[in-house]
């Protein structure tokens, strides 16, 4: 009947229309015999009937043409096949019309939930698949609370059903619910655990079929893993989104998550008892190794995990109560301190460690044993913190831990091994404090091996780093080791010394790991724990030196890291320089600063941090000076001649950076003490730099440094003034020749020139002698070039000479434009006049000039004459 449904359906469609019309006509017909009007009415009724039929194509239907409503009705059909088909139909419907599910979700669940207890296995399976594939994923976004509360009563009903298969399906389904909506467990934790206990206790049901037991156990393990037993998650909440917290708010205790689990500890005790017994049942199987298949392995793993979670939770509750002075409740005694549980745990559970097959088998089975042993070890580590276990038992476990960390257990595959190490590592710091000397040394050695062997970007490495922190500075406090105890110290410094090289290995591909390492280094630096070796320093240096620098020098990833990681690195640098400052380190920093790829903000930050270190008295004043001067003199400002729009833009930003840097250095210099004293120290070095004829921008910066420190009248020595007077004319000419005159925006042009001119003005103002000498030199330059123009016939050199003269005149005109400077150069008017004369003679006499040149000279002469006249006025 079901098979032939599709064709039958078509007939039905027609049939329905026809039949119904007929019926209605028939109904209307009998009473009046001659009233024809009613027929029209009946026609009017036909139309909605027809539209229902038509709309059916608009309605979402399943493949078989049934609407949702029809399908839902069919789910409670007495025939199991129809029920099953209906469920399939619903799934099919949702596949094609997802919107249907969204609009009727509660109605659907209301109807479907009864099927949890369905007698037919096939129906239950379909039901489970439907929820897994369609319904739960669709609910993922919106609140699942109401849905779960609809389902839960039925689930509980099914859990207590008499048929074992129904019960198992209920557990399986519940597991699914918890997976999608974890808070389900915390809402009815006690009841749920009770149910689990019941089903696991009746293990005679599954002596043959372990897969059934597995269903219950995996669900239990999942639920128990939801118990809030990890302190780290509350820690992370603590540091989490700061901004959302209110500043002045009263916190209610009731809202706390753990309050919800307040009453389940008695239940947990029972569960642990049941689980341990269940484990006991498995022991012969484990040792037999023949019947030990994947199913039983999974079962045991779930059992052990569940026990582990339960113990962890109870320990955490205990410590929490101790630290926060909560009032003692009925669960005051720690579960594992309970006499019965403790003895059961140590004898029945931990006593069976290590789990080994009687005859050696390799491969998969071996891996299983390893995993089970590692879970057992975790339980041991939790328990042993609180209760004393027999020594030989402890030794067995410790040996296992050591071998795992050393990587000696060859049979295990790599990911499993890494995972196990990851799980065992967090216990190492406490273990080191607890175990006796020999074991401690062994464990330290094993940990060191793990640390150096694991891959640099792996999560294992990350875990190792946090372990190192916990060992050296637990809770941000140095753990003072016994001074006599050198071994621990040696291990610790060995770890610390490896950190910088690790930074270089990590490169810029693992910012998170790099951040962790830097944070650790910073914290170590803050507490003054960096008792370093030379290699350590080398590596730190290399970390900061940019990669592309000078050929074979190994470069570090500092420049290419994210900003916040760089900030951490700089903070570390601060504490590092405090303790072990060296000039190679400083030169590394300088080369880092000179890297043109460096972001300007970072550059300023580096300078600021070094200055802070200087202020705190950790950098010698001479070193600090040399840092500043090297930075200013060696920074390469991009050549001026690049004129294309793009490059011009780029250059401007870079110039801006350099200007900012100059300002920064000048203000720091003036903070360093009495200006004249600082200048006395710096004078020689600065003048040496001047003599080297630096590029325009660098020259300007150096002149600015001098100006910032100098006072009026100048305190510069005679020889420095001479050096300056030799440098300045060329510098002034450079200003005019290098900065392209912007005809459209003359204001901007003058501002740009002024930036370079101002230091000269200050110098002129402070020393009239310098003014005179500079003008004199400029005059002689004009004369020389005039002569050259006259004698040389070469056009090219003629042009340069002409340009030079033009530039000099422009400089004088620029200076003249400034009212204050006009007063300064008034004293040297004679020099200007001489230049003027030269220009005029050149214009009138010279034959070598082109027409264009002559014209230019004429204009210049005219302007100069006006300027010189106004000087007198």
């Amino acid at each position, binding site marked *: 009947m079901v098979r032939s449904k599709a064709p039958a359906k078509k007939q039905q469609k027609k049939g329905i229309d026809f039949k119904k019309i007929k019926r209605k006509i028939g109904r209307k017909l009998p009473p009046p015999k001659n009233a024809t009007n009613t027929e029209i009415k009946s026609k009017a009724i036909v139309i909605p009937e027809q539209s229902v039929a038509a709309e059916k194509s608009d309605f979402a239907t399943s493949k078989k043409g049934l609407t949702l409503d029809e399908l839902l009705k069919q789910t409670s059909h007495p025939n199991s096949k129809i029920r099953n088909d209906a469920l399939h139909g619903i799934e099919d419907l949702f596949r094609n019309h997802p919107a249907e599910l969204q609009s009727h979700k509660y109605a659907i669940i209301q109807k479907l939930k009864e099927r949890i207890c369905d007698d037919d296995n096939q129906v239950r399976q379909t039901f489970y698949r439907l929820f897994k594939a369609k319904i739960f994923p669709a609910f993922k976004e919106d609140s699942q609370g109401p849905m779960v509360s609809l389902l839960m009563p039925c689930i509980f009903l099914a859990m207590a059903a008499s048929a074992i298969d129904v019960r198992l399906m209920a557990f399986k389904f519940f597991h699914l619910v918890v997976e999608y909506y974890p808070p389900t467990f915390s809402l009815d934790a006690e009841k749920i655990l009770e149910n689990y206990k019941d089903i696991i206790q009746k293990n005679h049901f599954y002596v043959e079929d372990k897969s059934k037991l597995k269903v219950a156990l995996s669900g239990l393990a999942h639920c128990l893993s939801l118990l809030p037993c990890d302190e780290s998650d509350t820690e992370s909440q*603590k*540091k989490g989104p*700061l*901004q959302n*917290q209110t*500043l002045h708010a009263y*916190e209610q205790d009731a809202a706390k998550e753990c309050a919800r689990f307040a009453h389940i500890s008695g239940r947990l005790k029972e569960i642990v008892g049941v689980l341990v017994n269940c484990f006991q049942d498995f022991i012969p199987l484990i040792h037999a190794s023949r019947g030990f298949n994947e199913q039983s392995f999974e079962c045991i793993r779930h059992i052990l995990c569940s026990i582990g979670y339960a113990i962890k939770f109870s320990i955490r509750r205990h410590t929490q109560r101790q630290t926060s002075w909560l009032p003692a409740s009925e669960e005051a005694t720690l579960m594992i301190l309970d006499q019965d549980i403790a003895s059961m745990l140590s004898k029945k559970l931990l006593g069976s460690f290590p789990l080994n097959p009687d005859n050696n088998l390799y491969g998969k089975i071996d891996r299983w044993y390893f995993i089970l042993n590692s879970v057992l070890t975790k339980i041991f580590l939790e328990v042993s913190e609180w209760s004393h276990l027999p020594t030989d038992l402890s030794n067995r476990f410790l040996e296992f831990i050591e071998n795992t960390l050393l990587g000696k257990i060859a049979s295990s595959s790599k990911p499993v091994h890494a995972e196990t190490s990851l799980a065992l590592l967090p216990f190492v710091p406490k273990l080191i404090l607890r175990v006796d000397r020999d074991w401690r040394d062994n464990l330290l050695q094993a940990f060191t091996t793990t640390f150096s062997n694991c891959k640099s970007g792996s999560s294992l490495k990350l875990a190792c780093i946090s372990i190192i922190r916990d060992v050296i500075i637990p*809770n*941000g*406090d*140095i753990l003072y080791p016994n001074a006599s105890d050198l071994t621990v110290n040696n291990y610790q410094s060995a770890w610390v010394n490896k950190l910088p090289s690790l930074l270089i290995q990590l490169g810029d591909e693992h910012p998170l790991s790099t951040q962790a390492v830097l944070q650790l280094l*910073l*914290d170590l630096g*803050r*507490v*003054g724990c960096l008792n370093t070796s030379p290699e350590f320093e080398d590596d730190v240096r290399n970390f900061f030196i940019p990669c592309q620098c000078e050929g074979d020098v190994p470069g570090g990833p500092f420049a290419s890291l994210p900003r916040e990681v760089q*900030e*951490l690195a700089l*903070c570390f640098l*601060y*504490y590092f320089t*405090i303790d072990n400052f060296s000039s190679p380190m400083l030169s590394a920093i300088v080369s880092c600063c000179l890297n043109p790829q460096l972001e300007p903000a970072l550059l300023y930050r580096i300078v*600021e*941090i070094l200055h*802070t270190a200087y202020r*705190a*008295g950790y950098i010698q004043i001479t070193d600090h000076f040399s840092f500043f001067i090297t930075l200013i003199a060696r920074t390469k400002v991009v050549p001026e001649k690049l004129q294309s729009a793009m490059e011009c833009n780029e250059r401007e930003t870079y110039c801006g950076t350099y200007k900012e840097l100059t*300002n920064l250095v000048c*203000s720091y210099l*003036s*903070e360093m003490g*009495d200006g004249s004293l600082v200048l006395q120290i710096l004078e020689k070095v600065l003048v040496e730099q001047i003599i080297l004829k630096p590029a325009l921008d660098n020259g300007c910066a150096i002149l600015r440094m001098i100006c910032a420190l100098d006072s009026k009248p100048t305190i510069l020595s005679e020889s420095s003034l001479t050096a300056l007077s030799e440098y300045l004319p060329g510098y002034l000419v450079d200003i005019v020749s290098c900065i392209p005159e912007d005809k459209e925006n003359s204001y901007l042009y003058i501002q740009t020139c002024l930036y370079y001119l101002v230091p000269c003005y200050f110098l002129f103002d402070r020393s009239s002698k310098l003014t005179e000498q500079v003008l004199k030199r400029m005059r002689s330059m004009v004369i020389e070039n005039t002569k050259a123009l006259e004698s040389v016939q070469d056009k090219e050199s003629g042009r340069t000479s002409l340009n030079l003269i033009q530039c000099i005149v422009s400089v004088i005109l620029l200076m003249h434009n400034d009212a204050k400077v006009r007063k300064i150069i008034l004293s040297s008017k004679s020099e200007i006049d001489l230049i003027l004369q030269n220009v005029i003679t050149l214009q009138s006499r010279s034959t070598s000039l082109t027409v264009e040149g002559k014209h230019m000279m004429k204009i210049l002469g005219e302007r100069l004459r006006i300027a010189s006249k106004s000087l007198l006025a």
Partner: protein
Amino acid sequence: MEIYVIASSSIDGGIGCWDLKSGIEQLRFKPCASPAHGLTAVGEKFLAASQLRNASASSGSIFYWSWNKPQVEVKSFPVESIKALAANNEGTYIVGGGTSGDIYLWEVATGKLLKKWHGHYRSVTCLVFSGDDSLLVSGSQDGSIRVWSLIRLFDDFQRQQGNTLYEHNFNEHTMAVTDIVIDYGGCNAMIVSASEDRTCKVWSLSKGKLLRNIVFPSAINSLALDPGGSVFYAGGRDSKIYIGAINATSEYGTQVLGSVSEQSKAVTCLAYCADGNLLISGSEDGGLCVWDPKLRRPVLTFRHGKSPVNNIQVVRKTIVANSNKSHSSWKRHGSALPPPLDKYERSGEDAMDGIVIVDPPPLSDVPAYSSFLSADLIDEQVKELQQQGSAATEIEMERLKLEYKKSLQMNDQWQKNYEDLLQVVMEEQNGGTN
């Protein structure tokens, strides 16, 4: 009441003192070259400042000045150089933070070193008492901030239990802490800390955790809290004074109050004067500037000298010598100031040593120095009282009798008033019913 501003510098320029209203410079106390946070007015009765010394000196030094003499009156030489110095509100205790990270607690009246403990791993940069004097907050160059309970510091039992000495340890700053301010919540207050890592952080003392992190464009040297409690002022290295909102919603939510100097000299210290709502800033170039924070403009400027100002305090002057009621033991030394501070903890002199008695809060007319004193000091004072004879008690009796009489009169007055009122009410009611 006269309000004064006192300021000191890191290079010897003495302690300048100005009348805040008139801006007239008062006495200059010399010589003094103190580190940042090294100047404090002890109970506003006299001045104390730790001194910067060259590294070779084996001990630090702390000087006292009385209000009316420009010369140093008392010199003490602690074991190491003291960086930060603070006194509680009453002026009964002085705490000092050393370069090694040790913190010292002295009793002012006797100069006794009550306690010395290892507070930080690097030098202590600032020390602040909470408003109710129950907690001490210390910041350090290592970037950590620790909160100490003055009572629990003396709890030997806890220490033997292996518990940490501090109440809270805040480690989130990545560079040296430069300043800490505390608001009015007593032991449940919020604190704001500034650091060279260019952030200010807001912490809750009751919850012991970080509440806000506010990033500034430059390192912050100093902080001042607005009495409204919703904003704070932060003096930056870039010569700007920033206004930070404590309840900032984003990490970068700061306004600029104003720039102190054009030459971009850093703002080194800030102080807030609640009386008149003025903000006083000190600059790297040696100037002090009084601001009206509401109008955001400077009102007054002082000149301390050429060297950077690094401490400013607003003080209401009270002069110890004029108070005839004070029967403090230091008077016997013939000086207006207490004896110098001890170098080492006295040990085993007598059984009472080191025990601190905490009194209930003092009444308003009880002379200062009678609360929070160590047991033997109280013994001493009891002895003194006994020797002084009954003169003091007689005066006290007279006063009490007078007060009693006044109260009786008051009582009569109230009773009369009540009867009058009753009369009026009755009459009115009668009128109403009639």
